[in-house]
């Protein structure tokens, strides 16, 4: 049994009851091995069943338990109470998103952006099942692998000051994933993605603050992906100006 308590101040917003958000203070048993999500689950199970938040895997894979913990975007399954205790932990919904209820944010904007940048494989050549797999060498895989580990947790959006002020910005994760497919040797969707990726709300809005890469729990480094995308677009632009410039087919 824990002989001391950890204190959490949790953001509460229940639009059916109160139009303004408030903070509610909870005391939970302090355990060395508890993560912040364990504390939220304790609150939900033992103290206050009305608290709403998203979570699923508890192991940094599903990307659904992202919240602001003392002002920093974190996966609450991956930060321990001991990282903060005896400091009070202030738990808020991810910054920059509309709040549906308590710690639950509205992800529609992010999902729409993933659709706009076509963050999926657009095969360079269609192959029938009889023709077999789309083969790829380890070196070709290595080019985009880092960007493919994104779990869509949107911590990078909460960290991005540009998205915080201008939600029309396509944003770090969507660009990193678009770049992931652009750099994939099997993909041929560069031109289709360019429309969104390189317009005025695309990569050019990024001012390279780099906080997206700092907060990323999977070390995706979206800031690097965005700068690489800028370089690709720039090469294309200058190629298009010269008669011998070949149109690109892969990044």
């Amino acid at each position, binding site marked *: 049994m824990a002989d001391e308590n950890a204190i959490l101040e949790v953001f509460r917003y229940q639009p059916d009851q109160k139009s303004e958000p408030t903070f509610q203070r909870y005391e939970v048993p302090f355990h060395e091995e508890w993560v912040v999500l364990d504390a939220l689950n304790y609150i939900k199970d033992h103290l206050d069943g009305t608290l709403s938040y998203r979570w699923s895997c508890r192991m940094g894979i599903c990307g659904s338990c992202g919240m602001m913990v003392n002002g920093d975007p974190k996966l609450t399954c991956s930060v321990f109470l001991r990282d903060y205790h005896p400091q009070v932990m202030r738990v808020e919904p991810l910054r920059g998103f509309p709040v549906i209820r308590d710690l639950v944010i509205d992800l529609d904007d992010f999902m729409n952006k993933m659709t706009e940048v076509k963050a999926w494989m657009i095969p360079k050549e269609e192959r029938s099942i009889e023709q077999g797999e789309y083969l790829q060498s380890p070196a070709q895989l290595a080019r985009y692998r880092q960007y493919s580990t994104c779990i869509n947790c949107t911590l990078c959006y909460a960290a991005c*000051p540009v998205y915080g002020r201008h939600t029309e910005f396509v944003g770090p994760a969507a660009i990193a994933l678009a770049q992931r497919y652009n750099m994939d040797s099997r993909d041929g969707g560069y031109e289709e993605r*360019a429309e969104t990726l*390189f317009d005025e709300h695309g990569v050019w809005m990024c001012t390279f603050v780099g906080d997206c890469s700092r907060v990323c729990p999977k070390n995706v480094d979206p800031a690097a992906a965005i700068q690489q995308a800028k*370089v690709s*677009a*720039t090469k294309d*632009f200058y190629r298009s100006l010269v008669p011998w410039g070949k149109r690109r087919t892969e990044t």
Partner: protein
Amino acid sequence: MPRSKEVFWWSLFSAGGVVSAFFFPATIIITGLAVTLGWVTAEDLHALVQNPLVRLYLFVLISLPLFHAAHRLSHLTIDLGLAHARRPSAIVCYGAAIVGTLLAAVGVITGL
């Protein structure tokens, strides 16, 4: 194809960043330290800038970092949330870089 004119300004920003990072330190050592420490004389430097290639180098060294700075400063309006100030600040910043580039061109051509 890129859809934004930003690609042009970003390319100058990017090139200016490379020039600033790689060539400024060397230039500062040559013009600042080397003369002071007596490794080369001011006359040597003067003779050096008579070479057209060195003048071209000086032009690049002055112009591209100006565009780098202009881009960075004009993007401060995004970081500060001053969306309405973006166009005026871009005109002032890039305008200053263009004027600086023209002056640099005049300087290296006429040897001022």
